[in-house]
């Protein structure tokens, strides 16, 4: 029984991690059809912002929850202004430009901070699940992921800003005719997605560490989750994270980590084969 509790808890943490990894990417891809291959490096920047701020005496909660999203959000805004905006509608070119950005960021961070940076350790500590130990910080991650999903859903479904954003994504020309400025909406969306990614990077820094190349390990998983989720990206990211999190965690628990990873990737390939439009391309179509 205790073991089931621990496994259940681990599955929740795995799902939360996938949600955190994918949500910022989902905003940018789901609303703008931009495949941001520098997504992993945006996470890395978030982690660095948290680590550097904390090591300079800022309270760790402030670094994670405020500094990271702010820094990466502003960085995303700059990136959008400096070159993404010239590439709208050119999907492949955006992919390549962001790929270049990804390499350049790895190089730049290595040059500025070296390959070694003092990381931050997880606050809070452990708690008992029967005879076993779970990480309280993991519980905090689950809460954050839920809050981010819920908050984003509410933002898009209930506010005026959300309505305008969704309208612009559906039909930019019509939105423009109604007095909305699509370029400004794109800019805001990209910054929002970047900020969410930065927040995720900051939150994950205490468990995954900070290194210039850390983003590479995350990027494939993030994409699979977003694409597996499909068009309604908030619901989709939630559902796909749940599915992949459960498969990965149970396969790892029952067999080996190698098989867990392969099982996740294979199930993603099969999912895309069965549901080429992602989960929400077939189910829950009316959600966001």
């Amino acid at each position: 029984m205790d073991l089931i509790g621990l496994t259940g808890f681990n599955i929740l943490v795995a799902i939360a991690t996938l949600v955190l990894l994918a949500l910022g990417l989902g905003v940018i891809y789901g609303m703008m059809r931009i495949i941001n291959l520098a997504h992993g490096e945006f996470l890395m920047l978030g982690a660095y912002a948290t680590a550097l701020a904390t090591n300079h005496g800022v309270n760790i909660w402030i670094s994670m929850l405020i500094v990271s999203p702010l820094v990466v959000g502003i960085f995303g805004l700059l990136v959008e202004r400096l070159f993404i905006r010239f590439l709208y509608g050119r999907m492949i070119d955006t992919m390549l430009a962001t790929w270049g950005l990804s390499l350049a960021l790895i190089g730049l961070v290595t040059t500025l901070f070296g390959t070694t940076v003092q990381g931050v350790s997880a606050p809070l500590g452990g708690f008992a699940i029967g005879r076993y130990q779970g990480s309280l910080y993991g519980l905090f991650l689950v809460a954050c992921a839920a809050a981010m999903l819920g908050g984003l859903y509410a933002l898009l479904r209930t506010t005026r800003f959300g309505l305008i954003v969704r309208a612009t994504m559906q039909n930019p020309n019509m939105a423009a005719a109604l007095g909305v400025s699509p370029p400004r909406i794109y800019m805001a969306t990209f910054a929002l997605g970047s900020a969410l990614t930065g927040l995720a990077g900051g939150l994950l820094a205490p468990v995954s560490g900070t290194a210039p190349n850390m983003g590479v390990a995350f990027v494939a998983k993030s994409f699979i989750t977003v694409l597996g989720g499909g068009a309604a990206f908030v619901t989709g990211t939630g559902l796909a994270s749940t599915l992949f999190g459960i498969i990965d965690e149970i396969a790892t628990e029952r067999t080996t980590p190698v098989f867990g990873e392969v099982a996740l990737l294979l199930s993603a390939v099969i999912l895309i084969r069965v549901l080429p439009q992602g989960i929400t391309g077939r189910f829950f179509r009316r959600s966001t």
Partner: protein
Amino acid sequence: MALNRRQFVQIGAAAGLIAAPMINRRAYAAEPIKVGSLLDLSGPLGSSGQTMYDAIQLAAAEVNAKGGLLGRPVQLINYDTQSTIQLYSQYAQQLALKDKVDVVHGGITSASREAIRPVFDRFRVLYFYNVLYEGGVCDRDTFCTGTTPAQTVNKLVDYTLKNFGKKAYVIAADYNYGQITAKWMKKYTQDGGGSVVTVDFFPLDVTNFSATIGKIQEAKPDVVLSALVGSNHTAFYRQWAAAGMKSRIPIASTTFGLVNELATLDAKESDGIITAYGYYEEIDTPASKDFVKAIRDKFGASVPYIGELAAVTYEGFHLWAEGVVKAGSVDRMKDIVALESGISFDGPSGKVTLDHATHHTIRNAYVGKAVNKKWQVLQSFPNQAPADTAAVCDLIKHPNTDKMFVIDVK
């Protein structure tokens, strides 16, 4: 300060006196001895390569400060292989065919070594591999100066059996080094009367260890033996501490702290982890202190941890230099014969001797414990032989062997 003419002439004359022998020496030693260096200075392995590059630059500078080798200066030719195997092959060819170097020191991963070793065999270049690895290379043109599992894993497991208990759980990186080291961990644990409950392997890009931490709790071992590799795997130690496991089950590792883990982790995450290496920066001998001071003086106080990678590279270079002096030549075959004659060097880690039969080193091994982001050296074991490689490789009897054996651990 204004100079009058007389002072000016005096200074000029003094400068001339100092300069004269230098000009002389340069004219005399027209042809430098070329040493190739192939290391990843950028990309994921950059942090390992940088410390090795510092060490080889220091060694070359020291040799040159003493007038070079055989009266000729040593010239270092270095290429950054950028953590890609293709560039290893490419630059190896460049060093052998274009730069025509006399020796190459380099390679970090076993994959990179196996990519360049055939190139140097083919184009007849002496090759030194200065990294700890899984053992088994048996090639007369190649010298491996780092530690192998028999030298360190053995000591590490002995320590955990004695101090922690008999039941071990092994976690290792899923590639050759991890797989082979895990076999050695299992063998030594069983030899010492203990048992290994589970062996888990992790691909190098895994960062989420929660399922494994659950499995370890379920198995309740006395100790976790880790051969995890790379910055992604460092996440294990963070998640282990975050789950509050730190005080419950101790960890011993053959890889932790080799590069920069102590600098990136918090003391409360790393304290108490036991490791075994051929060298620690904290080793309290004059040679070790001088070495650490020389590196910090030359490259600044910001140089991160100076560990086995740096020390072994430094010692590998000096061993080669001793061989050249003894042979009186940079001819490849003459150097090999000289190096096989039992050359030794007193380096920062202690006395290091080249073993003829395996072309590996007989060197000291140490066991250390992480205490407040430093290593506290607990035990030292002088003159440890590379027994694992010796079991499969005998270059005295079969000098023409050119192979990497996968040592069959029984």
